[in-house]
């Protein structure tokens, strides 16, 4: 089977997401589609999968023009997709998720559960996926959930399989496992599209690499002939610095001291399991771990957003264990939240209003009752300039800015005061390379100004690039405390997967 996209153009209000894109996918090969966030990769694949309709251009299957009105058409044409955000119903079982839409039925539309169970088990065994058909999705770790997605695609007998950023949620070892699955799919004669912004992975697995920049195909590359630096330059359009530029850390006194921290969810299930660690002034501590191992809850507990069941949190000797988010803020702690759309910004508010979102209560901006909007606006104007936020004006709704500029608004707001501690969660998720470089530099600046910095990221590369010391979280516990210079991606990966544990010191 050969699939060809010819001259695909897709416009959204205000942006051209795909501009005359051409792409060919053949059976039995792996095509990597690389490009930075916002380059239009996902849009292109959603067009291929019938979720979006192209404004211009045509899709061909084996030379015949086809139109996909809906995902149903694409599935029927033999295209399968493993989405970046899993398309699984959390309250359904594995089997229910897999058979959804092609359910085996008895009379009156009765669901034939036994048959579904058997079918799912059979394919699971055939490809060595080791899945229990009756397990509830919401109780499965993300790595396993991804296998369910793969099973869904195989169940529908897809000839072309698209993986959208599949390694984002995996440990290095899981990534290896995943590549084995990809190889076996390839060997069975399927065509694979591998969408990623991680260049090493593209170079490692792909037979061909296609590069997308600002909605356009800027070229193809042969992985045998190109190196990471050249590929990065192709992707971004200018030379890129692949490492963060920073001096060795000069740690001073302990700033953040976390002792025996215990956090549970409303039903009493343990999320953060008696955690101990310290962050010193002048150092960056990175927390690595697969998504969903308690990092989110740890940060929420540290910043007053989640109730603490036991243990203590101290910043420069001041106890913040049962403090509110406001009190944490007033203790000179900055918090860059993991999801800027959900909690970091109020999209409908102006840039100026967002610049004071966490600080409107400070004496500078209000007398406790009335707001001093003049001061707020002049501060916002200064910060927009200082932090290079590209916005038409400070009266522009923050929700209309690009991801990178939204994140810069948050970084400007949080880092532009005297700080003891910076807690940054996923500080560069979904932003362009330019903004990533800028934000990383700001985090290093905060460290050099004497703050203690805690960076939590599920991107192992980011932790390894920024951190002076690396903590690994696994199932709510900190299973490793490593000096950055004395460890490797591989070692951290083993801790992330729970395959290795440090003895408590």
């Amino acid at each position: 089977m050969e699939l060809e996209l010819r001259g695909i153009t897709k416009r959204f209000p205000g942006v051209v997401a795909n501009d005359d894109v051409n792409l060919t996918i053949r059976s039995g090969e792996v095509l990597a589609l690389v490009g930075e966030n916002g380059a239009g990769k996902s849009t292109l694949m959603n067009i291929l999968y019938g979720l979006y309709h192209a404004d211009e251009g045509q899709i061909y299957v084996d030379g015949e023009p086809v139109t996909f009105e809906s995902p149903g058409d694409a599935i029927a044409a033999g295209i399968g997709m493993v989405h970046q955000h899993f398309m699984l119903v959390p309250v359904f079982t594995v089997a229910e998720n897999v058979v959804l839409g092609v359910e085996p039925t008895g009379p009156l539309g009765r669901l034939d559960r036994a048959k579904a169970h058997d079918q799912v088990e059979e394919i699971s065994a055939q490809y060595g996926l080791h899945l229990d058909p009756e397990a509830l999705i919401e109780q499965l770790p993300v790595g396993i959930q991804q296998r369910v997605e793969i099973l869904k695609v195989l169940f529908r007998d897809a000839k072309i399989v698209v993986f959208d950023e599949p390694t984002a949620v995996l440990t290095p070892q899981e990534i290896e496992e995943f590549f084995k699955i990809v190889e076996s799919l390839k060997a069975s004669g399927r065509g694979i599209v591998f969408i990623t912004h991680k260049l090493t992975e593209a170079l490692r697995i792909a037979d061909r690499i296609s590069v997308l920049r600002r909605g356009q195909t800027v070229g193809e590359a042969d992985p045998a002939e190109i190196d990471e630096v050249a590929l990065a330059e192709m992707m971004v359009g200018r030379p890129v610095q692949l490492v963060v530029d920073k001096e060795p850390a000069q740690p001073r006194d302990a700033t953040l001291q976390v002792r025996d921290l215990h956090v549970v969810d409303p039903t009493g299930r343990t999320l953060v399991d008696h955690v101990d660690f310290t962050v010193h002034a002048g150092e960056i501590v990175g927390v690595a771990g697969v998504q969903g191992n308690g990092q989110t809850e740890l940060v929420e507990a540290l910043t007053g957003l989640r109730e603490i069941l036991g243990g203590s949190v101290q910043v420069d000797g001041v106890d913040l264990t049962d403090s509110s988010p406001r009190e944490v803020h007033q203790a000179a702690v900055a918090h860059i939240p993991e999801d800027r759309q959900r909690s970091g910004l109020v999209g409908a508010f102006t840039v100026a209003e967002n610049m004071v979102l966490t600080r409107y209560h400070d004496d500078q901006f209000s007398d406790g009752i009335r707001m001093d909007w003049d001061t707020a606006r002049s501060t916002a104007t200064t910060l927009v300039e200082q932090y290079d936020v590209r916005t038409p004006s400070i009266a522009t709704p923050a929700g209309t800015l690009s991801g990178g500029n939204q994140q810069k608004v948050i970084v400007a707001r949080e880092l532009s005061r005297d700080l003891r501690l910076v807690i940054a969660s996923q500080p560069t998720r979904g932003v362009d390379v330019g903004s990533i470089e800028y934000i990383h530099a700001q985090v290093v600046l905060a460290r050099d100004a004497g703050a203690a910095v805690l960076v939590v990221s599920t991107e192992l590369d980011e932790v390894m690039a920024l951190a002076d010391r690396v903590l690994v979280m696994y199932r709510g516990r900190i299973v490793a405390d490593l000096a950055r210079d004395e460890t490797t991606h591989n070692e951290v990966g083993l801790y992330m997967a729970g395959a290795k544990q440090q003895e408590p010191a």
Partner: protein
Amino acid sequence: MNQPATLTDAYLDLAGSVTRTPDQVKRSRNLGIAYFVLAVVTLFVFARGDGGTSTFGLGGDSTFGVPSIPLAWICAVSFAALGGVQISRGTGRWQSALIAAAALLFVFTLMAWAAAGKQFSLTGTLHDALKASTPLVFGALGGIMCERSGIINIAIEGLLLAGAFTSAVVGSVVNIWVGILAAMVVSGLLALMLAWLAIRFHVDQVIVGFAINFFVLGVTSFIDSRVLTRNPEYNGTGTISQWKVPGLHRLPIVGPILFEQTFYVYVALGLVAFIAWALFKTKWGLQTRAVGEHPTAAGTLGIDVLRRRYINVTLAGAISGFGGSWWTADVGRFNENITNGRGFIALAVVLVGRHHPVGALMAALVFGFADALALKFSFLNTGIPSEFLELAPFLVTLVVVASVGRGARVPAALGQPYEEQ
């Protein structure tokens, strides 16, 4: 990812290691305090006065008597004991069962107090409770169908009212059966409009539902005062009488409660069973729930999310319309705002029943019972002002929703527009 099976198992083990959170401790304490308060209320209200024996009728000639004051004492003492246990160490997994038992005991004490020295037909009251809960069941089933597919339905009141109005008018002009059919069609179309506005035009679903309620109220009131009052021939259908199920209605106690009802009750019970089966055992149910929980997941598997929603919401409207015709069959005519807020109680029934047909039936029975009890009390000269009896069902709704409140899980995609490009 080395040994996934064991990894899964280990993960599930972790999920099982449960600690009692401070929040749960606090809730347990509050519940205990509530028990104590009820114990005091029982002591000061129900255990005073002349007392006397309350005679409960069980249908036919069988009765049993209960001395009201000793019963009140038993109730108060057990509540106090329960409160003590609840505060000191909690009641663990028996908590829900104990709450239910306590509620039963309390209601029984209340009835005994009201009927002290008099006759009280228990079967009659339960019969009326089932009857009063019937329109709530239909409204709630409509709500469940709608919300399981991801569309918020606060228009139940309007759909019921439209059903009542249509069945009365069409029923008067043709006959009641055609009237019922027309009611289903009209409410189905109104629901389709709700779906259309919500899906096609992204109107906030709470607001559309609200607007439909008041549109229906406005139109029916307008036509009622402009047309029906001057042309009574358009408003009078006669009622539908009870149908005693042969044989079964002779059963003691159960017979007079369950099997001497109008066909609405039988249809309601049948529909509860059918929809419960369909939702959880069929292909339609699986797809419907997928559409309500994670429409993009369903959409990416080729399921036509919007079509499914349109169909389900329209069916839900038809069910509510049928429920609306209950008033016409019961009263034999239409009066302005005849549903008087029952659709909103049905909305609460959906939430309290956790979007499950059987749960909704249970919740509807509770509210129907509150209704029937209030009516009964007004005949018993209890000294409770009639206004308080009128507000009782609404107060019960508030209290029940408040105590279930946070526990209620709703379909994840409820109220969110689904975008198909």
